[in-house]
């Protein structure tokens, strides 16, 4: 039985378990003078049966599937002829891949010899046996669980408490997934990054001024020893983010001020959702817009003034990234401006100040921590933004602060290093993880500072 069908069977079985458990509890209840004499309502007895039917069987099912493939592969390898088994691990892997391809009917890289065919048949038969035994075991466990609960259903069985405990456990398990995600990110990125730093010293990575991550494929190749100094990459990231902030902060902040202090209700109701549309547009669309419309426009405009503008200028990417971040800044500043108490405004008006004076001298200073927090979050967003820079910024790592030049960013490098075929032992691929680690650390620090600042600020007025 194939695993999907087995899963459905299990689902059906536990639905049946629910029904049987409920029936049984009615029967038991009626024997003891009515359902009200049971400890729990009949649904809970049904649920308990269903849970006992499904959970142990599911645990076995997933463990089996998890280990099945590696066990079968080892069995097949141990049956291969000796000359093949003594191959180095990577060659052996190729052979195993070929066998698996043969089994699933894909195109095989080499020619098919009878030994290979036999191994494939062996693999096939093993996996058939494994699936069959899995089906039997899972169904037996499910039915056993169902029978067990059926037998112990009695007026004293505290079914509701059992079911609730299981549900609570599931809720707790779900809420820890966030922690496991963070741990997973840190471990996976750190592990590969440490492997990278074993080859390239950390000092070279942090202080080197030259970035050209091409490694020689053959030892005798000329001029491609690779240079992993990340300074130009980080400078590029900072340059593009700075341009983005120069666009987004004034526009976003002024829009927020106008919307929350000047605009009438109707104007606000129309314009705010329109601004939020900007936030909902996928970044790949912004990237297309930057590469196809903004970049040529900037190049042509620069040409008119006799400037030599690169067609992948930092300015184009930064400008469009700024547009993307406008709604982010405006909605965050809108929140903090609205949180400033009315009494501060009224105090300023009472002293005779105009609206703009109130805003500039009372509201903005009062809201400043919140606004700074929002800007920090926006910076971390700009640093981590990928698609706009992949499509509109360049690959060449120039160490420059001229916005008309081509620069590259951390995210662009991660994408170029990891898209396509990879070998996980070359520094070229591992470098992407080192960059990813840096990216994660920097954005994490920015986020934590921003969250602390915003929280402090909120407490101030609550």
């Amino acid at each position, binding site marked *: 039985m194939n695993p999907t069908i087995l899963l459905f069977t299990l689902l059906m079985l536990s639905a049946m378990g629910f029904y049987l458990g409920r029936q049984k509890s009615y029967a038991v209840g009626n024997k003891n003078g009515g359902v009200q004499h049971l400890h729990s309502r009949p649904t809970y007895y049904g649920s308990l049966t269903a849970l006992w039917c499904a959970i142990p069987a599911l645990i076995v099912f997933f463990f089996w599937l998890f280990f099945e493939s590696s066990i079968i592969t080892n069995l097949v390898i141990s049956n291969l002829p000796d000359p093949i088994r003594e191959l180095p691990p990577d060659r052996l892997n190729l052979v195993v891949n070929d066998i698996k391809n043969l089994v699933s009917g894909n195109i095989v890289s080499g020619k098919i010899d009878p030994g290979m065919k036999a191994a494939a048949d062996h693999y096939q038969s093993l996996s058939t046996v494994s699936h069959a035994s899995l089906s039997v075991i899972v169904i037996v466990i499910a039915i056993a669980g169902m029978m067990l609960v059926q037998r112990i259903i009695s007026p004293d069985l505290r079914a509701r408490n059992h079911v609730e405990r299981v*549900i*609570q456990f*599931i*809720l*707790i398990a*779900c*809420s820890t*997934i*966030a922690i496991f*995600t963070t741990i*997973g*990110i840190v471990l*996976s*990125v750190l592990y590969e990054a440490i492997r990278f730093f074993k080859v390239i010293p950390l000092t070279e990575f942090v202080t080197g001024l030259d970035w050209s991550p091409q490694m020689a494929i053959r030892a005798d190749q000329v001029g491609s020893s690779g240079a992993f100094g990340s300074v130009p990459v980080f400078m590029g990231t900072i340059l593009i983010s700075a341009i983005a902030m120069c666009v987004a902060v004034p526009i*976003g*902040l*002024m*829009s927020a*001020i*106008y919307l929350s202090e000047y605009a009438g209700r109707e104007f606000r109701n129309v*314009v705010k959702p329109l*601004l939020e549309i*900007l936030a*909902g*547009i*996928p*970044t*790949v*669309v*912004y*990237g*297309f*817009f930057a*590469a*196809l*419309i903004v970049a040529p426009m900037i190049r042509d405009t620069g040409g008119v003034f006799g400037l030599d503008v690169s067609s992948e200028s930092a300015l184009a990417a930064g400008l469009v990234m700024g*547009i993307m971040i406008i709604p982010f800044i*405006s909605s965050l500043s809108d929140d903090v401006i609205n949180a400033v108490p009315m009494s501060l405004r009224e105090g300023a008006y009472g002293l*005779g100040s*105009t*609206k*703009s*004076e109130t805003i500039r001298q009372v509201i903005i200073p009062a809201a400043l921590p919140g606004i700074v927090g929002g800007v920090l979050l926006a910076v*971390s*967003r700009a640093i981590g*933004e*990928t*698609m706009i820079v*992949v*499509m509109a910024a360049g690959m060449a790592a120039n160490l420059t602060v001229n916005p008309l030049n081509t620069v590259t960013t951390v995210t662009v490098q*991660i*994408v170029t290093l*990891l*898209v396509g075929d990879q070998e996980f032992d070359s520094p070229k691929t591992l470098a*992407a993880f080192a960059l*990813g680690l840096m*990216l994660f650390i920097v*954005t994490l620090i920015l*986020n934590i500072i921003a*969250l602390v600042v915003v929280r402090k600020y909120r407490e101030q007025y609550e």
Partner: protein
Amino acid sequence: MSDNLTSSIDRHSNTDIVQKGLSKRYNAERRFKFYGIAAICASLMFLGVLFISIASNGYGALFQTHILLSVSFDSDILGGEDLKRANYQGVIKNSLLKMFPEVKSRREKKSLYSLVSSGAAFKIRNILIENPDFVGQTMDVWVPADDDTDMLIKGYMKRDVPESERRLNNRQIEWIESLEKEGRVEKKFNLAFFTAGDSREPELAGIWGATCGSFFTMIITLFLSFPIGVASALYLEEFAPKNRWTDIIEVNINNLAAVPSIVFGLLGLAVFLNFFGMPRSAPLVGGLVLTLMTLPTIIIASRAALKSVPPSIREAALGVGASKMQTVIHHVLPLAMPGMLTGTIIGMAQALGETAPLLMIGMVAFIVDIPGGITDPSTVLPVQIFLWADSPERGFLERTSAAIMVLLTFLVLMNALAVMLRKKFEKRW
């Protein structure tokens, strides 16, 4: 007396000072207000330019130039009995040569053949396989034109520039013009764009493959992230004791919400592909990565929805003897559901537009086949847009914009649904 005098002079001069400064201050006020309006206008202008440029580039892809060929299914040219492997390219070439008998040299023949898309052969192949008795007959068939022809007809290629600066030479333009005169060229609705998979030829490329990939990915994301997100929110909001452990979870979730999406791609590559050995380019892995990415959004929205349910509901349920779990599942959860669904839809819309993490797990491959399941190699709409945006052909520019329009339509629909849900079920307690 003198005191009064000085104070009245003072008052007088104070008022003077205020009066003098007033017009300056009012000007400053006007300027400030103007900056506000200018900022809003600037952002709305960006929005407008973005939409207009994409729509004006993209609407052309809804139509595709077709050429009417009189195809004769000559069994000599088709060669052999097997209709599946017959020489359909030869049939197309033959019918083109019949229309322009003056073409003799190999080079001219080649440039004549290139007016018609290589997909034309597939079209007549399908016709013949459905109706095998057409062999030996001649019939008129509309076949798709090559993308260069298409661009010329749509007016993106200038006819009056020097020959070396355009992709079609003078002879080819003459042929197309004579075909136009005979009424054999027509723009028809581009159905292939909505039903085909990816292709190297712009005129044959479509978004159906990517749409299916997106659909499978979204299904996985929805089925994992909604239950898990709601369950975590329930635990954190309703059951969790306030202690260090839950504080850590909270800080974690807030941080994950702001981690760059590409880092989730790195996680997927290192954990799902390299450690667990899951298939590359599969919607299954894409869905898992997007689940981890959208979970924080859903959890935060669900917690807000739970917070907005008034405590009186909980107290009433507890008061009539419901257990804590019954209170939450029977009373609090249904009331918070609309808010949770809204948050989930918004999270899904984010996931649908996400590209970067999917590049990391190999969903960026060139895939022609329409994926049929969650483990088939596939790509998704935003990645398809990214791939097409990289192609140099003018025909792909048009199709990229059209694909963006389709993607934006989906996003608008999802967000409209979220707004509707919120409007319909929003309760003020």
